């Protein structure tokens, strides 16, 4: 657990060091752009660690299917690329990305629910 947090902080520091290097004159600086996002990432990762370490091994397969469905949130980025004012081939790439992400959103949540529906306790003796 501690190792994991330290790894995350280390990775963030590495990103900060890389992104903090001098860039083109008018380019936004690290402080403008990325520090808030690094905060968001670290807090989300930390929350994720706290919650997911408490998921029992019993539910590890549904957990994988669920996090996979959730990370298909890249659908929102795909939607923008498919629909924004870009060259046609970029819109087309966006459409393929939308399709791929939708497979995971729809399939992922459906299959997670199918699995979770199966987990039952012993029925109380009649």
């Amino acid at each position, binding site marked *: 657990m501690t190792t994991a947090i330290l790894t995350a902080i280390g990775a963030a520091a590495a990103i900060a060091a890389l992104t903090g290097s001098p860039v083109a004159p008018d*380019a936004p600086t690290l402080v403008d752009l990325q520090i808030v996002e690094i905060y968001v990432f670290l807090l989300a990762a930390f929350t*994720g660690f706290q919650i997911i370490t408490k998921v029992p091994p019993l539910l590890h397969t549904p957990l994988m299917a669920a996090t996979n469905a*959730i990370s298909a949130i890249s659908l929102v*980025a795909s939607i923008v690329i498919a*629909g924004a004012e870009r060259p046609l081939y970029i819109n087309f790439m966006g459409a393929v990305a939308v399709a791929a992400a939708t497979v*995971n959103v729809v399939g992922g949540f459906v299959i997670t629910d199918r699995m979770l529906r199966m987990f039952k306790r012993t029925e109380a003796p009649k």
Partner: protein
Amino acid sequence: MNDQIGALFVQVAYIGASAAFILGLRGLTKPGTARRGMQLAAFGMLLAIIGTLLNHEIITYEFIIIGLVVGTAIGLPMGLLVPMTAMPQRVAISHMFGALAVTLVGIAEFLHYRDIPGGPGAVKMVALGFETLFGALTITGSFMAFGKLQGILPGRPITFFGQKFVNAAIFFGAVALYVTLVVTQSGGATDAAADLGVPMFFAMTALALIIGITLVLPIGGADMPVVVSLLNSYAGLAASATGFAIGNNILIVAGALDGASGFILSILMSRAMNRSFANVLFGAFGGEKVAVAGKSAEGLTTRSVTPEEAAMRLGYARNVIIVPGYGMAVAQAQHAVRELAELIEHRGGRVRFAIHPVAGRMPGHMNVLLAEANVPYDHLFDLDEINGEFAACDVALVLGANDVTNPAAKSDPGSPIYGMPILNVADAEQVIVVKRGMATGFAGIENELFYLDKTSMLFGDAKSVLGQVVSEVKGL
């Protein structure tokens, strides 16, 4: 003004979705709350999608609708029809779809920034490059894992001479391109070095695709729980990097959650196989240890029993622990096992299931199969919970599990699996092992358990053999 209200709505939708994801995952910490939690997460996803569709940048909906329809047409039947036994493959292929979306977004964003004066800049390039690198290697890596799990590719490790050297060269090539891109892309498309940006970017993507293949090919079937978890983590990190690249917080949050989950599972799985996490990260598994043979079985004999005899012992046992493994999944014997367990309970015995963390081909594989067969989850126990109980049990029934029961992991420092946590099956008063033949497990070593005096081997296909045992127990 309207634009501002729209933007505010999008942000509120995203914050709501983030909260729904986190609360949804918290639901998964208990079987009783898991379903509602996931319904909440799905609602969060819907909220985020609706919010995005209202984004003012979007001017055309044709491509979006085509994508949504095609994706649903593939995803819905996959979600509804895939059998539980095929769950490892389905999870592997879904990592591929997720990574494909992320990689396409990465490439499209890179090409988009190239058209803008000033280019992506170093800050965006770090995120875009990371996203595409991890996305691309996850695409092919997951596809290879899918191929192995589905049986299209041989499950044994595929190796060739000089493999490590070639892999290292490709890996450093991709990293060198990544670093060069970050350094050169800050000046925009005008200067000479940046003109090579597009070919360099595609070369990096191609190398990452090759890395995915070479990473997974040398890994054997039984190591798949680690691989699948690791690819899960990579897919999440790539999604998170997308969030950094386009300045979208919900991608960062969801990707971080997925990354954390895959990371934790990888650690748990590698610990359950007594491998260090570094060993896992560098993909060195499966390589060396196959070559090392354990103690030879010469001069040792096993005792085999008939289904009738096994039925006698199981039917009159008071305390039975069943140890399922990949063999149960292959034979699809979970329903027969449940029937046997119910019969024993009906006759007054107690039946519990002992689940090793790496039993099967993905984390939690056995639990899902047994749940499918209607085995109540309060009968399933983890390694730590049940290991002390074997000494008090009459019969331990080992069902297609091998290496996770090998006492050599405790007693023989020379064994390749020495130190791996195992189920203490050998402590039981007697052991019945259901197995197709005397082939060794994935680690390629003999299992001393099979040669103990208290062990009886019940040879045959798990499903048909258990079917016979069940009908014999009924006749007792």
